[in-house]
């Protein structure tokens, strides 16, 4: 049995990059929480961290390939992470039963108006630009 040193090295490098990128993401998140708590900002800390990370990428302070090994699995499984938060809707079943018509109207009208307004505007703007 021969051991492919190059392939092994590649895997080891990849395995190292995952904790590095998660450490970068976590450091942005923790810093944003600390700043948000200290100054009592109402703007959500994870969003401040996202904007800060975006700026860091734009300014070239961070390289995309440092982050990608960690962000890819996180984004791939993101829908799973909000399942418990959404499942807690059961707590509000009396409120939903009472106002089901509003929810039903919003369910169809909000996306319909959003689709038409964005699509129409973009088509017009592209046509005239």
């Amino acid at each position, binding site marked *: 049995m021969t051991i492919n040193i190059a392939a092994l090295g590649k895997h080891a490098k990849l395995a190292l990059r995952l904790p590095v990128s*998660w450490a970068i*993401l976590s450091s942005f*998140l923790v810093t944003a929480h600390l700043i948000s708590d200290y100054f009592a900002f*109402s*703007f*959500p800390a*994870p*969003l401040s*961290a*996202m*904007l800060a*990370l*975006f700026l860091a*990428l734009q300014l070239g302070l961070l390289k*995309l390939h440092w*982050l990608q090994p960690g*962000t890819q699995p*996180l*984004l791939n499984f*993101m*829908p*799973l*992470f*909000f*399942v*418990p*938060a*959404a*499942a*807690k*809707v*059961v*707590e*509000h079943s009396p*409120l*939903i039963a009472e*106002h089901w*018509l*509003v*929810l039903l*109207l*919003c*369910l169809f*009208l*909000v*996306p*319909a*108006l*959003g*689709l*038409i*307004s*964005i*699509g*129409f*505007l*973009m088509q017009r*703007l*592209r046509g005239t*630009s």
Partner: protein
Amino acid sequence: MMWLALPLTIIAFLCLRQLHAKVNSPLLNPVLWTIIASVLCLVLFDLDLPSYSRATSPFNYLLELAVVALAVPLYKQIHQLKKQLLLILIAVAVGVIMATSSAYVIATVLDVPQQLKASLASLSVTTPITLLVTEQLGGIGSIAASMVILIGVVGAIVGFSLLRLFGIKDRSAQGLALGGACHAIGTATAIADNELSAAYASAAMALSAILTPLLVPLYYPWLVHWLG
């Protein structure tokens, strides 16, 4: 017993995702059905909600980390569509305002409590952002999140037909509308349809994730002031 909540949620999601990959219908959206399965378990076994929250709390940290990670697709999309960034920004901002206004007007006309109005204020953005913005406005995150997912499913089913019906045939405009109004599920529909729509849908989804938390907390109090 409650320690099973986390592994069972993961297993249910992975199985439903496999099924969705085979059948490929928006009606079989894996997130939607994992939520429905979780709700059914909570109701049928009369499970304690605070204990359920504690057992699934690692997801909260991962969700926050995933929100931070959204900076990466945003950075990539902005570079791809640099030339039309202003047009896209205007169209997506109008979409965000339209979604907040229409939901607020419907809720005001039908006289619902303020907490429910706040829960419907940010429906045109990806779910983790909705959870954060709704919490900031004093709404109920779980209602907002469920609505956002259902809106995505509606958009995936009728999105392209509705756009064509209203004469919107430009593929970039169709993609932008799907990503801006129906977020991740709408974007997935655009990705399945054609490459041009897919690029615009991804950009719209990423930009609405930035614009919604910036615009809605400023616009919502204004709506409350004028419409009550």
